[in-house]
């Protein structure tokens, strides 16, 4: 089947989802009011609280939520065939992610633009705040671990991409300084910066950087693992720098790269008319996980991602000009992420191989599929770029740069946030040595994911990358579950029908718990003594979330029936 047909059908379904389902949500579930004075107006400060045009705000929101995760998850999940992966991305985006992202935004706007963590405390109870902190701790640990492995694998496979990635750092700092020091328009410097970044591909081809000479063939110090150690050393330093020095300028360049990559995928699919060579359903080989329920934790970002609720309630809700804009910004943000996931599916089923035999070799087992996922996406995008007349050797490095840039920025942000979470948990636990010392907190934020990242493929104790990725998926889905629980209680208390929120909530919690239980059994059987306790802890968090959600919903329903007013939100302390 031509990839363009799939792309068009998905575009129509996304349009229908936005046109009709989000309209239902806006009127019947979230009851948006065009006359409501949003926090952007009532608390305007010109920095965080700032009324913003809805199209511009959508751009800000989309570039904040889009990253490497909606690329890697679908690139692994097509192992089960493109049918299940595509169906979950499309249905998940329309009926779960849209409800979740839009809902988190709508609820936050009605609560002085508070974050989902604070809302959990207000709407559910104080225990939910602690639960939120713990889920985020494991989410960030796994985010940092999986993206370190993704980058390590790509550096090993594409030594020509290392130099451009290194040069991106001074380039980003230079552009950042230019914008900081001048008030003139930044369009030309940005174009020049992006051109210089891609021009450095030629330099990278001349000077490929490989650590194969100093790395061991197997064991702890393989080439991939040395890259992983270097990456964490980099993030340790980068996360201590002020955000405006490196993180923000890198993010600025990435936001341009996102639109360039989407353009290349879209145009490449249209011009090349590539055929999907992967099977719609791929029989699961012996020893690989079955698609049900593992598909739903392999693709988190792209179908539904809890991380979006942090962005929706963290920055976007503070800039919403009119409450009714929440529909466009929130729901379309989910659709944008879903589109990126569909692009990844097409790259890994149509772009990456010319025949099904070639494709079968790349996706021979779950371990092969997961280890090669980012590389397969890179190969697929390179093939689409070739359709536009770009040579394969340059196109591969271009695509690798895009994925590595996204993943590196996510790691930088992740370690930075993890440092705060470590300090907050240490403060609650009374461990002042950690909570008062930034260096120790940062070291912990780096060392824990480093250990996780070094084990995949690391000798007898090792495991496949896909297993680590799925654990990351479970924490992401639990974050989404917590946000959906907050939204469901909020909707119930207002005597509106919460079914649209409850369906994705119940589905997510059921699939995540099921997958965690199956994995726990496997880990114990395989004597994986790093993963088994981690899986057990995440499962306990899932059970805790289920209990809290059920209790809060029951309480909310009783309060709504009794006509009790909603409790006033507490102030942040």
């Amino acid at each position, binding site marked *: 089947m031509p990839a363009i047909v799939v792309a068009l059908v998905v575009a129509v379904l996304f349009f229908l989802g936005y046109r009709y389902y989000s309209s239902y949500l806006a009127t019947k579930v979230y009851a948006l009011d065009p006359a409501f004075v949003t926090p952007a107006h009532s608390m305007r400060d010109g920095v965080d609280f700032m009324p913003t045009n809805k199209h511009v705000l959508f751009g*800000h929101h989309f570039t904040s939520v889009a990253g490497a995760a909606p690329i890697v998850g679908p690139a692994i999940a097509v192992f089960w065939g493109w049918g299940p992966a595509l169906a979950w991305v499309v249905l998940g985006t329309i009926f779960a992610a849209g409800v979740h992202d839009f809902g988190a935004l709508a609820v936050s706007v009605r609560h002085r633009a508070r974050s989902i963590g604070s809302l959990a405390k207000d709407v559910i109870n104080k225990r939910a705040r602690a639960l939120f902190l713990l889920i985020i701790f494991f989410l960030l640990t796994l985010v940092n671990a999986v993206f370190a492995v993704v980058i390590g694998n790509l550096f090993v496979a594409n030594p020509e991409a290392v130099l451009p990635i290194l040069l991106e750092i001074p380039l980003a700092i230079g552009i950042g300084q230019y914008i900081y020091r001048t008030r003139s*328009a930044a369009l030309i410097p940005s174009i020049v910066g992006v051109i210089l970044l891609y021009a450095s591909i030629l330099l990278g081809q001349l000077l490929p950087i490989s650590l194969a000479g100093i790395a061991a063939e197997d064991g702890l110090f393989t080439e991939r693992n040395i890259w992983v150690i270097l990456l964490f050393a980099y993030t340790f330093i980068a996360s201590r720098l002020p955000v405006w020095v490196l993180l923000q300028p890198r993010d*600025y360049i990435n*936001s341009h790269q996102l639109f360039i990559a989407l353009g290349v995928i879209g145009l490449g699919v249209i011009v090349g008319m590539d055929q999907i060579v992967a099977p719609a359903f791929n029989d699961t080989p012996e020893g690989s996980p079955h698609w049900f329920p593992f598909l739903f934790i392999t693709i988190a970002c792209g179908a539904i991602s809890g991380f979006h609720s942090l962005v929706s309630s963290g920055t976007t809700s503070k800039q919403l000009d009119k409450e009714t804009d929440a529909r466009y910004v929130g729901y379309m943000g989910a659709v944008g992420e879903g589109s990126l996931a569909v692009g990844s599916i097409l790259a890994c089923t149509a772009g990456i191989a010319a025949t099904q035999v070639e494709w079968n070799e790349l996706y021979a087992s779950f371990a092969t599929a997961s280890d090669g996922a980012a590389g397969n996406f890179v190969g697929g995008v390179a093939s689409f770029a070739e359709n536009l007349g770009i040579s394969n050797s340059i196109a591969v490095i271009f695509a690798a740069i895009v994925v590595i840039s996204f993943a590196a920025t996510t790691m930088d942000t992740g370690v930075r946030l993890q440092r705060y979470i470590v300090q907050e948990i240490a403060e609650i636990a009374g461990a002042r040595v950690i909570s008062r010392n930034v260096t120790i907190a940062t070291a912990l934020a780096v060392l824990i994911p480093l250990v996780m990242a070094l084990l995949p493929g690391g000798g007898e104790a090792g495991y496949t990358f896909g297993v680590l990725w799925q654990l990351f998926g479970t924490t992401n889905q639990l974050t989404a579950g917590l946000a959906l629980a907050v939204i469901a209680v909020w909707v119930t208390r207002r005597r509106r029908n919460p079914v649209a929120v409850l369906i994705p909530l119940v589905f997510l919690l059921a699939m995540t718990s099921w997958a965690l239980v199956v994995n726990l059994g496997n880990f114990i059987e395989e004597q994986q003594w790093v993963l088994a306790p981690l899986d057990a802890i995440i499962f306990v968090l899932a059970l805790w979330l289920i209990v809290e959600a059920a209790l809060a919903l029951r309480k909310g329903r009783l309060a709504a029936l009794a006509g009790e007013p909603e409790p006033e939100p507490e102030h942040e302390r």
Partner: protein
Amino acid sequence: MSLTSRLAAAWRRLERGHDQLFVARWRQGVRREARRQQDTLRALVLLESLGVDNPVAYETLEAIPYLVADVHAWHRRMGQESFGDAGVCC
């Protein structure tokens, strides 16, 4: 309108759009960071008003007029609806 002026107008629109979409977000982040540092400094300078002994209160006395201008926005941002004695701030 000549072709040149039309092209120039289109370029300016493109620059404005690019600025709103990409640069505004970047500048907002820089302003947020600057404000965070300013908030930390303000909290240190106003330690005495918060009931905490400040060993360098005499040295920082001169900085107070520069930092009280937006103290109302600051205490609200920190989650306190009022600050100091009644009538002093709000």
